[in-house]
């Protein structure tokens, strides 16, 4: 499988889904991202990215329960696929490698 180059927002979405561990559905992901990153997240941007990552095979989704507050509409829970895990780990290793390559004097 060829390596998929994650965008910054894609990486953040994947990480947030990984954090939520099986509880990741649209609103929960937005809340978690806004809380942790202190930035506004648009529902349109998030949904588009999640559908794209799902089409790329990095995410999978399944319907969950319907609640009254949701007008009887079911939640769609997202989880990382094996490929999603691999891509996230690769992104992390690349960043760490870059960090470790920075000369110590730079941030003194």
């Amino acid at each position, binding site marked *: 499988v060829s390596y998929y180059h994650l965008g910054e927002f894609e990486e953040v979405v994947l990480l947030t889904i990984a954090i939520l561990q099986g509880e990741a559905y649209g*609103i929960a992901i937005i809340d978690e991202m806004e809380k942790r990153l202190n930035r506004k997240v648009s529902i349109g941007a998030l949904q588009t990215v999640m559908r794209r990552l799902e089409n790329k095979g990095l995410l999978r989704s399944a319907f969950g329960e319907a609640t009254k507050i949701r007008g009887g509409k079911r939640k769609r829970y997202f989880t990382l696929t094996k490929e999603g895990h691999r891509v996230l780990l690769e992104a992390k290793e690349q960043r760490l490698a870059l960090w470790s390559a920075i000369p110590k004097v730079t941030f003194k």
Partner: protein
Amino acid sequence: MKKNSSGKLRPPRLPLAFFRWFCHPHYREDIEGDLLERFTDRVTKIGVKKANWLFIKDVLSLFRPGIIGLHKSSYQKKINTMKRVNWITLLSFNLLVTVMIISPFIPGPSNKVVFWLSILGQITGTFGLLLVPIGLAWLIVERRKLGNKKSGNRISSYHLAIASTLFIMLVFALAAAIVPNPMPKISFLSGLLLVVTGFVLALQKIQKWEHNKEQFNDGGASYILAVSAISCISFIYLLTSVFVLVGIGIIPGIIMLLLLLVGFALINNRVKLLKTGKQEKFNPMPLYLMSVPVIAFLGFMFLITPLSDFSRNFAIQRSQVLITLIEEHKNKTGEYPVSIDDLDPRSVQKKAKTNIMGIENYRYTKINDHYSLSFSQWKDLGSLEEIVLYDKNNLKDNLIDEFAKYDYSLDLHRVKGAFASHDTRYDNWRYYLVD
């Protein structure tokens, strides 16, 4: 505050309806749930008014390619089917007709063929407009076909085809009744006869299919429309053939008529396919019937005048070198040349040409110590000749000796019969409009 029957808060209806309309059906349920959950949460935190605005903002943020997925069953199917239309071919065909119309006015080697091509294009842009209602009716029939609507539409498509054909007949009949001149009257009556004959034959064919309990599409609507379109196109072609027959000669006219027969033979099989052809396949023919005459009409109406101004000025500008050569000849020999051929052949060979495709070479007339130079271009279906005349000594009003006698080949005489004349922006050049 708006609440539903169970007393729950509900978001603005229109944005929600818009979301339901554009959202891909696979994503609709969970995203709508997210929207409602977020809305309810916001109402308790920031109030209804702000929550409503933010709901609208959320819906608009979802209106993007990854989420949009309009109803595939009908709309998407139509779009996909329309993608099979070769738009480039359609565009090229329209462009070709436009180029045909303007070809006599663009720079290039002089050629009589461009005149006839322009006539054909101009006829398409005038009489061809009769094809537009047929094309429109056919487009409706095709769209209904793709909409998977059954029996109800089959009957109405059939009547739509009959109505559009009757409309064409009415136009022909009215035109024949209104025009006073016998030639156009005969032309319109011939057109009427062609359409009526085609219509009767098409109806007979459909009756035969019904009688034999054969299967056929659209209640025969496409077949009727195709026959009507062929009748109108044949009328346009025959009209051009008559122009060729009268303007060029019998042999080219007969060749054109033979080509029409070849065209009939080729199109016959295609028309037969309309009877039981694939229902789901979109037939692009209505798009041609609608676009080509309209584009030709626009070209005819709005391009010919500016382009004929351009070609006239272009030819006048090019004549300046020829006029200089003529004057130089007079300085050398003491007389103007008898004909252009008397000038230095090496210089004249290129410089005596107008270099406009629809304008033949300059016409030179010497009368005693004076001369005139002229050329012609044709407009309005070849019915209007524009004679552009260089006459610095006002020869046309002072014709003497053998030139005083009317000579149709002499532009100096012909311009006297012009119904209008106009100045050009060049000294001593004037153009005259002759029927």
